[in-house]
């Protein structure tokens, strides 16, 4: 890919000359898939609602009429917010994963490589320990998740290896491990009958208690975080060829990397704050996407987002319907994601997706 000349002509024209999103058949197909999956999911749940009632309620709601009753409550207060959350979470983690993998030129990178999840986890368990309201737990998770990334980046810089990817990843591992240790400490001092179960559930990830308010906060945040990734998709593509190539093509490597880290951190931290820690999605989905459209980030990004969103909706539907109780979603993504990942690895030719020709 990196031998292919980048088609935008002028050095400052990476942004302006191409449409924000080119709707290819793959993208269109995946968008339709996501829509279908979401509609089916809206009809499935432990509280039985006839498909006709789902449609009727949604039509009435779109028409602006007030919908009442239990069906409306289940649909609009519980199920649809949850599907929306699954879309946000899947899209955000996959986008961040794709961005980081391209940025770090490493297929093993996931959205929490810089310690976002562990940091958010630490904030959240502290919130649970002190018995804060759920909103505060979410806010605390978001803040500590972001702080953790700032800490990692600062640490990497202060080691006088400015912008060195290896230093960033190592700092992320170190700080992430520290946060994990701090989480363990909190678990030890937590009340084993009251707080420990809550902490455990949070760390396993769940969308069970998503409320419409959560969506109202998270969806815009994720959208805002996605914008720079879309605008910079060419530069990120170029960056995935290596710093020297990118510089030769006139990309400000350091600036681009900073913006991508900030954007990916923002979207990851905001979804982790409401969903808890959900692994594997951000690692696995970009690989699946690469299988479809190849490694170019401008193509990879929309496809990753759509696959991630649809995948998450499916997984969350399983989580809320497969058993009487909620299955922690992080457990499911690990099971499904791990399996898929092995399948991806065994495919012939999957290596070539990363080979720089």
């Amino acid at each position, binding site marked *: 890919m990196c031998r292919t000349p980048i088609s935008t002509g002028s050095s400052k024209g990476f942004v302006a000359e191409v449409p924000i999103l080119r709707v290819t058949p793959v993208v269109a197909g995946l968008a339709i898939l996501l829509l279908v999956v979401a509609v089916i999911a809206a009809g499935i749940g432990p509280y039985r609602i006839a498909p006709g009632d789902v449609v009727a309620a949604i039509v009435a709601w779109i028409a602006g009429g007030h919908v009442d009753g239990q069906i409306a409550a289940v649909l609009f207060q519980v199920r649809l917010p949850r599907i929306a959350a699954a879309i946000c979470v899947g899209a955000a983690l996959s986008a961040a994963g794709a961005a980081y993998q391209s940025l770090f030129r490493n297929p093993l990178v996931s959205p929490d490589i810089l310690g976002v999840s562990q940091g958010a986890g630490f904030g959240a368990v502290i919130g649970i320990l002190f*018995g804060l309201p759920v909103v505060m737990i979410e806010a605390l998770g978001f803040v500590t998740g972001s702080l953790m990334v700032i800490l990692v980046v600062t640490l990497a810089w202060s080691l006088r290896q400015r912008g060195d990817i290896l230093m960033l990843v190592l700092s992320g591992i170190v700080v992430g491990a520290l946060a994990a240790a701090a989480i363990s400490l909190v678990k030890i001092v937590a009340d084993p009958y009251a707080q420990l179960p809550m902490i455990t559930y949070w760390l396993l990830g769940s969308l069970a208690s998503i409320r419409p308010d959560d969506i109202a906060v998270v969806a815009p945040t994720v959208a805002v975080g996605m914008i720079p990734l879309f605008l910079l998709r060419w530069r990120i593509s170029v960056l995935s060829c290596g710093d020297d190539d990118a510089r030769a093509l006139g990309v400000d490597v350091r600036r681009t990397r900073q913006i991508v880290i900030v954007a990916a951190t923002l979207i990851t931290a905001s979804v982790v704050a409401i969903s808890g820690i959900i692994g594997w999605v951000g690692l696995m989905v970009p690989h699946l996407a690469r299988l479809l459209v190849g490694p170019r980030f401008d193509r990879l990004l929309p496809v990753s987002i759509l696959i991630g969103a649809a995948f998450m909706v499916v997984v969350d539907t399983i989580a809320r319907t497969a058993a009487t109780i909620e299955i922690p979603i992080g457990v499911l993504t690990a099971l499904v994601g791990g399996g898929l990942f092995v399948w991806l690895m065994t495919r012939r030719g999957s290596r070539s997706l990363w080979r720089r020709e």
Partner: protein
Amino acid sequence: MIGPARRLVVLLALTLLIFAVCAPVVHARTVTDSVGRRVEVPDTITRVFAAGPPAGIFLYVVAPEKMIGWGRAPRDIDKPFLQPMVRDLPELGRLTGRGDTISAERLMAAKPDLIIDLGSVNETYRSIADRIQAQTGIPYVLIDGRFENTPAAIRLLAQILGVSARGEELAKASEAIFAEVDRVVATVPEASRPRIYLARGNDGFETGSRGSINTEIIERVGAVNVVEGIREAGGLARVSPEHVIGWAPDTIITIDPAVRDLIMSRPEWQPVPAVRNKRVFLLPNQPFGTIDLPPSLNRLIGLPLLLHALYPAQATSDLKTELRDFYRLFYQVDVQDADLDRLLEGLRR
């Protein structure tokens, strides 16, 4: 003249004699715990370490003067409901096998005469008891903590601690509570018994499924726990609002005022029949939770409280007096009238 050899023999004999005279001072007796382990304990036990919060509450109730610390220190708001002598005892941690928060060394430094644990009595806990006893040399007794076993557990613990009279009084009182529950429940036809959801966690969506120790009290008062577990019953679970709406419980119970406020105010709870009919009961959690948290002897007072909330027509006893008496007898504190009213506030509809 006696030779050096003979002198040595005399010295040895004297030493042995001294030991023989002194040894009976540390009298020992053998007790049998709930899993049939025969444990040698000192005649007089003055310092007891409770391995976890459930055991801690039993120990506090049966013999507070023998406590050397808490598994979890009481919160400030709980302290007025505890005897002064135990309020400020240190938090020592818990012994659970894995994930202990007290080390063997610190445990020995605390110099307990006895370790008690109360709860499940399976092979895991038996081996933990054996191991810690062998390692520290401190006698360790394991007591069956099933709710039904409460009177027997009290008697056993009181007998081991040498306070049988108090144990008998408490055991009789708990038998009376169970008997009153059975009497009232028998008068309520199956069809009119409530279907209950227990709201735990700080958003109310954590609960115990049917058969779990955390919700034992629901079944004990003849009600139905709406949460059915996956095949093997028991344990805590997280559920979604959709589940709760689907189960349509007619009664919700919680011990957390914040959770009750959430339930009464948030839209996702409004379709639940219990919320529409304002049957969301807040049970007291001072000094200990009356439903679980931890599941221990504190649940005894949860029974009459639930009985009055669920079957107001059939439960005839005077709840306020009953609550006052329970706190006086079991926790050995006199609760002021205003505080009693506050504890009972959440049971009003």
